[in-house]
């Protein structure tokens, strides 16, 4: 301990003797680390497994059922129709399944009818949604079945925003002037990346405020705000006929998620889809080639082409930048050690062992690590701020948890060590006489 303090003191003195070169080395190193960290942060949030306990069992299913005799259309559409969902549901193979889309509405409470309504994000979905993605309930529970009902589940923040409390099960809310009863309040929950809906590259958006039943949405003509694809739809725009039209046409806007608990179940469900398509073809429907997709939740960004390519490109560049900075810093620290080489050699000539010099170097590394880490965090914050303002859809990805900070700190120590390793070896192991001469 005492030697450590002594060594730290020596390091500090040697910095003080030539502060500018040291500051520049540190600047370069932390600049590289900072840029790398800011990118790694985004990359981590964008590519992590948000639900590791069951990600292996969650799949999104799609059918290539669109009309039109297109023999080279193998890729199913990104969103599917109500008819598709009807056919893929109730197989008995899945342990949970839910169709869904996102929308929005203006909400207010009954007590506060005069207030200007505020916009809320909706997730239109089915009973199993909360089970599929392990969404925790604070109060109440999900709908008893998938039937239409004027009942909603709301997030904790929404409850607090509209009612200023969380025990609001049984309360009424107005959504786009329709009256709904709150039957459940969620605990704090978010999924980052929000893999259950990556369409429109919205995987970095927060979870929705209010959850309403799918059948209700179809009855009330609530539509997706992400993607509605109408193919060969013949409709006069009369709202009275919307529910019927949307349920029986290729008015595609749904995503359908299933939970399949084992590889055998996955196999079975794939077979189920195959048989389904055969039956459809036999009945004269499903004119396009079979193109069933059962994508695991961890592959979904790729499958839906929702990866943030700009971020990937930047990741590559940021890693190279780090390399440049590390190389640079080690070049500079080599220079610094060379400048002190005479002193090093003299100390060795005076009897310091290599180990003593090494421990001196370790003290150097420690000191640089602490300083570099602090500076790197500052640069990383600046970097995140810049990226957030330049690249759309990255704002939610900019936070750190303790674990990340720990990993980053370790990384800094490692890099600092690397940077000093060669110079240290060089100064403490090269032949003595050569250094003392001249």
């Amino acid at each position, binding site marked *: 301990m005492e030697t450590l303090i002594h060594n730290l003191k020596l390091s500090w003195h040697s910095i003080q003797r030539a502060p*500018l*070169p040291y500051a*520049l*080395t540190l600047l*370069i190193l932390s*600049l*590289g680390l900072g*840029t790398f960290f800011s990118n790694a942060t985004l990359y981590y949030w964008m590519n992590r497994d948000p639900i590791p306990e069951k990600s292996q069992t969650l799949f999104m299913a799609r059918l290539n059922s669109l009309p*039109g*005799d*297109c023999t080279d259309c193998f890729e199913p559409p990104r969103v599917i129709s109500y008819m598709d969902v009807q056919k893929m549901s109730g197989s008995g193979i899945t342990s949970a399944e839910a169709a869904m889309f996102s929308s929005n509405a*203006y909400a207010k409470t009954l007590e506060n009818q005069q207030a*200007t*309504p505020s*916009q809320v994000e909706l997730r239109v979905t089915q009973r199993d949604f909360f089970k599929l993605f392990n969404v925790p309930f604070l109060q109440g529970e999900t709908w008893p079945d998938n039937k239409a009902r004027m009942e909603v589940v709301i997030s904790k923040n929404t409850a607090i925003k509209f009612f200023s409390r969380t025990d609001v099960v049984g309360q009424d809310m107005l959504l*786009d*002037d*329709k009256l709904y009863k709150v039957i459940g309040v969620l605990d704090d929950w978010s999924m980052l990346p929000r893999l259950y809906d990556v369409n*429109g590259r919205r995987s970095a958006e927060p979870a929705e405020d209010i959850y309403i039943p799918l059948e209700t949405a179809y009855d009330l*003509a*609530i*539509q997706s*705000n992400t*993607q*509605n*694809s*109408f*193919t*060969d739809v013949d409709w006069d*725009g009369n*709202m009275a006929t919307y529910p019927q039209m949307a349920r029986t046409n290729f008015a595609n806007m749904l995503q359908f998620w299933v939970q399949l608990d084992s590889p055998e179940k996955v196999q079975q469900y794939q077979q189920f889809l195959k048989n389904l398509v055969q039956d459809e073809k036999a009945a004269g429907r499903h004119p396009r080639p079979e193109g069933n997709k059962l994508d695991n939740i961890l592959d979904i960004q790729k499958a839906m082409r929702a990866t943030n*390519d*700009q971020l*990937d*490109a*930047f990741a*590559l*560049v*940021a890693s*190279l*930048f780090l*390399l*440049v*900075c590390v*190389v*640079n810093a080690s*070049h*500079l620290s*080599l*220079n*610094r050690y*060379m*400048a002190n080489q005479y002193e090093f050699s003299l100390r060795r000539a005076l009897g310091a062992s290599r180990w003593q010099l090494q421990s001196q170097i370790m003290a150097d590394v420690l000191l640089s690590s602490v300083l570099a880490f602090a500076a790197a965090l500052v640069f990383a914050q600046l970097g995140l701020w*810049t*990226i957030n303002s*330049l*690249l*759309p859809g990255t704002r939610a990805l900019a936070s750190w948890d303790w674990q990340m900070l720990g990993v980053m700190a370790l990384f800094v120590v490692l890099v600092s060590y690397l940077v000093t390793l*060669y110079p240290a070896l*060089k100064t403490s192991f090269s032949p003595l006489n050569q250094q003392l001469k001249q």
Partner: protein
Amino acid sequence: MSVFLIIKSLLRRKVVTALLLLQLAVTLGLVVNSLLLASAAKELVDQPTGLSLEQILTVWVKPTSKALRLEPALSEVINRQLAAVRQISGVEAAVYANQIPLRQGGSNWNIFEVDRQDETNVDSVPYYNSSEQIFQVLDVRLITGRLLTELDRGALNIVLTEKLAKQLFAEQNPVGKVTNNGTVVGVVSDFYSQRYASHPFYGQIVLGPLHRAEQGYQLIVRVAQGQSEAVRKQLTDVIRNAEPQMDIGTVLRMDENRDDVFRSEIGLATLLAVLSGLMLLVAMISAYSHAHFHALQMQKEVGIKRALGASKARVLLDVLSESWLTTAIGAGFGILVCYGLNISLAKVISIPAVPVWLPLLTLVLLLLCVTLATWYPARIATRISPATATKTL
């Protein structure tokens, strides 16, 4: 000093030199590719859109009450809003539309000639449901046939953009052809419609009511030259006064919509430009501190050379030519890095191939930076008297 001598002394400092070269090579590679991306982004943004960007304002609105989002109330509200907007001085025309041009994506219909669906089907073509003044607002030229008028409202008549008409009917006269979306009555000049549609310049225009406004709708305003800011200031209030139960988005000029469409590209290009700047800065710092660290050793060396008869200018040239040579060698490897990086980047994003002149230009830039950074310490080293420098310690 001769190139040969510099190389010899570089070779004696293998590790330092290798580090220096590696760093220079990667810097060059990165700067080249960043410049490339930046220029590609600029080209994307600067491409002709067929629209007079400065003279079109757009604003998204949505009635906050459900009743106002359905006919007949909806049409009544829209007419009230448009009438009010047209009163603003500087406004030449104003229309509603289901969507605006110059977007990433939006509402599309497939389109085909009714008797030749399989050969002519185009998957996603943006459609504009609007009113008569839409052509004036967008300022598109009539190529053939006629424009739509209020008489076409509700009738299944349709106007196509030139590129779409070409795609559907090739050299045939499109006027009178029957598509799944209506009979073609005219063709107008191309404008940038949706980036991710089947083709960015495909578009189809119909006249008709919106029916409902669950996703809101757009008001598009054409303003006189130089009036956009004046109109923009009043627009929100005028719309709100026409109908208070209204959620009103930000008023955007068309060039702002365009920047939004290419935001990812502009963002990445800016980011990489910043990073390139940093990288050049790092190269400069490195050259500077390299020279600075070596000042002691250099001073002695410079002193000896001066005593042996080298002039100040000559010594300065010596020091500089050492950094020039290392930069040039580093840049030589850099060209390899630059092509390698280009290939790897092309796997994730679209990036043009490296033109030959660009690495050369970057090399010049790099040389300039390095010279700038080496200059000062080199000058200082030459300034000290050779008598002092050659004195024994």
